[in-house]
């Protein structure tokens, strides 16, 4: 791991789509819809909890019953401002809600309340890092607050669609990037980084399976250096892998069109993960005429400095700052620091492991950090992967991990014994000290007992001892193995080495 620090990043060549007439550059912008973490909806007191029987987490406001009026949820405002600050964006002291008008069965009002001309958050930037270590700033255009729609289910009845409004009215932040991304890998790194930041500050849980984070992907192609081409928007892509696949397919499709002498038509498309292709979604030419106008039922959203400062003060350490701290204060390699700060839950687990390790071993964190980090990213992550678990439901607690590391550090356990104890911890959830004691897995450091074992081994293998003394030095390993075997694997390898050298020397 330490070697990685000195490695110079190798710059990857730019991502180009090669057509028959030459290379094309891909231009990508993302609109990420992130569900705000709040108990109740953006404009009503209905619950935002995922799931539930259909139409049970719905108020009369969400169902757009006549005469119902929206009242803004302050927590959603606070979360949008915190998100804007975490992404280095300007916060607009004055913003406004607008109605976006369209008809669909899961949009009961016939309009979505969104923010069009005056969003709550303005420009900012996110730094992404690619696998080869290159870094790039990706501009944020704006973040606005809006309502989610309900859910239509088309496959329960041959002639009918079923509508569930439980999601209707849940607060979303739409985070709009500038068209700064140039490859599927950059788009993937951007969403990964964004997700880590949102999770770290607790404004969105980032759960892509449940749709808490999804993206509309704008893709166009052009000759390198030429003006932007006509873009297509791929709607509602709900995994990072699909985002990348959709971009690669769409870029190729557009290049093929252009080379065939046809024009790219600006349109909305959807990504079909089973076929790995994009298809046109809305063909009606006026489907995009949303006739926005200011929402007459809501006042302009005015923020004062005290509110914004309180939001700023509530932000925890952000992933990139934490990573830098792990490198400088704890002396971890950039790679390990990156792994440990990619997810907030894993970071917090590591912080507990580190604090507990330092306490148990009576050393400053910096001195126990590398071992703790290597054990967590190595043994623990491998075990979690094997058990198909996340850190949140790890069978081993940080305190138990720290106890194991302490037993290893003070010589109670050898490396192989620690691995054995760890396996038992995973199965039983018992503390490592208890396991080592009860199952007799402690390292034998009793010199007298080991000396007897050494003597027995040498006596039983007198012929080999003679060969060794005659110069066949590689037999040393054989003697070590025999003594370890005699001790049931519990002998301290260092001590066995010492004793053997003395006995043979």
């Amino acid at each position, binding site marked *: 791991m330490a070697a990685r620090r000195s490695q110079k990043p190798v710059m990857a060549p730019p991502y180009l789509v090669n057509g028959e007439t030459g290379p094309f550059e891909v231009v990508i912008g993302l609109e990420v819809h992130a569900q705000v973490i709040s108990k109740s909806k953006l404009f009503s007191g*209905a619950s935002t909890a995922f799931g539930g029987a259909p139409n*049970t987490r*719905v108020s009369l406001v969400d169902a757009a019953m006549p005469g119902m009026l929206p009242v803004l949820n302050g927590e959603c405002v606070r979360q949008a401002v915190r998100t804007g600050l975490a992404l280095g964006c300007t916060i607009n002291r004055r913003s406004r809600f607008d109605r976006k008008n369209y008809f669909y069965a899961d949009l009961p009002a016939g309009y979505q309340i969104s923010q069009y001309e005056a969003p709550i958050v303005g420009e900012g930037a996110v730094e992404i890092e690619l696998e080869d270590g290159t870094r790039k700033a990706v501009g944020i255009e704006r973040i606005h607050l809006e309502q989610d729609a309900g859910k*239509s289910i088309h496959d*329960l009845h041959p*002639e*009918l*669609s079923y509508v569930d409004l439980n999601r209707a009215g849940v607060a979303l932040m739409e985070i709009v990037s500038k068209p700064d991304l140039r490859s599927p890998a950059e788009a993937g790194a951007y969403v990964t980084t964004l997700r880590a930041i949102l999770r770290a500050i607790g404004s969105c849980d980032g759960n892509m399976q449940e749709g808490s984070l999804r993206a509309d992907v704008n893709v166009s192609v052009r000759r390198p250096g030429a003006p932007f081409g006509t873009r297509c928007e791929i709607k509602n892509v709900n995994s990072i892998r699909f985002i990348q696949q959709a971009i690669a397919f769409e870029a190729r499709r557009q290049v093929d069109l252009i080379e065939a002498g046809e024009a790219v038509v600006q349109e909305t498309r959807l990504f079909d993960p089973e076929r790995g292709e994009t298809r046109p979604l809305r063909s009606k030419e*006026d489907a995009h005429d949303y006739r926005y106008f200011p929402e007459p039922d809501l006042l302009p959203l005015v923020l004062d400095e005290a509110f914004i400062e309180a939001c700023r003060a509530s932000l925890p350490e952000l992933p990139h700052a934490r990573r830098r701290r792990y490198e400088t204060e704890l002396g971890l390699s950039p790679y390990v620091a990156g792994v440990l700060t990619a997810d907030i839950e894993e970071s917090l687990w590591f912080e507990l492991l580190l604090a507990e390790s330092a306490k148990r071993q009576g050393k400053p964190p910096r001195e126990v950090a590398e071992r703790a980090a290597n054990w967590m990213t190595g043994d623990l992550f491998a075990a979690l992967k094997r058990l198909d678990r996340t850190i949140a439901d790890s069978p081993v607690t940080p305190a138990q991990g720290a106890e194991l590391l302490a037993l290893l550090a003070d010589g109670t356990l050898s490396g192989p014994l620690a691995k054995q104890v760890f396996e038992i911890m995973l199965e039983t959830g018992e503390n490592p000290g208890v396991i080592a004691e009860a199952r007799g897995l402690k390292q034998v450091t009793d010199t007298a007992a080991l000396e007897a074992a050494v003597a027995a081994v040498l006596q039983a293998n007198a012929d080999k001892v003679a060969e060794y003394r005659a110069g066949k030095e590689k037999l040393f390993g054989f003697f070590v193995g025999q003594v370890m075997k005699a001790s049931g694997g519990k002998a301290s390898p260092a001590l066995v080495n010492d004793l053997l050298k003395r006995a043979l020397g």
Partner: protein
Amino acid sequence: MAVDHEMVARVARLARLRLAPAEVAPLAAELNRILGWIDQLQAVDTEGVAPLETVIPITRAWREDVVTEGDCQADLLANAPAAAHGFFAVPKVIE
């Protein structure tokens, strides 16, 4: 701005209103009269006058983030033309 017949037909389509051909011309005339009145208002010099958004100074009329509503499925579905298994049931809308 003048509204022509084509614009009336387009706005009606977007608003899901079905207009008989005979209704288009009178509607265009009515809309043009409304727009003419707006033009008249636009003639007033409002330079330096902030828009009046509310007559009482309300800021931060925000709600607390607590769950206070919901669990009224039967009421929600009571007026729906069709419902099944707790869902609203509508003619199939899939593209």
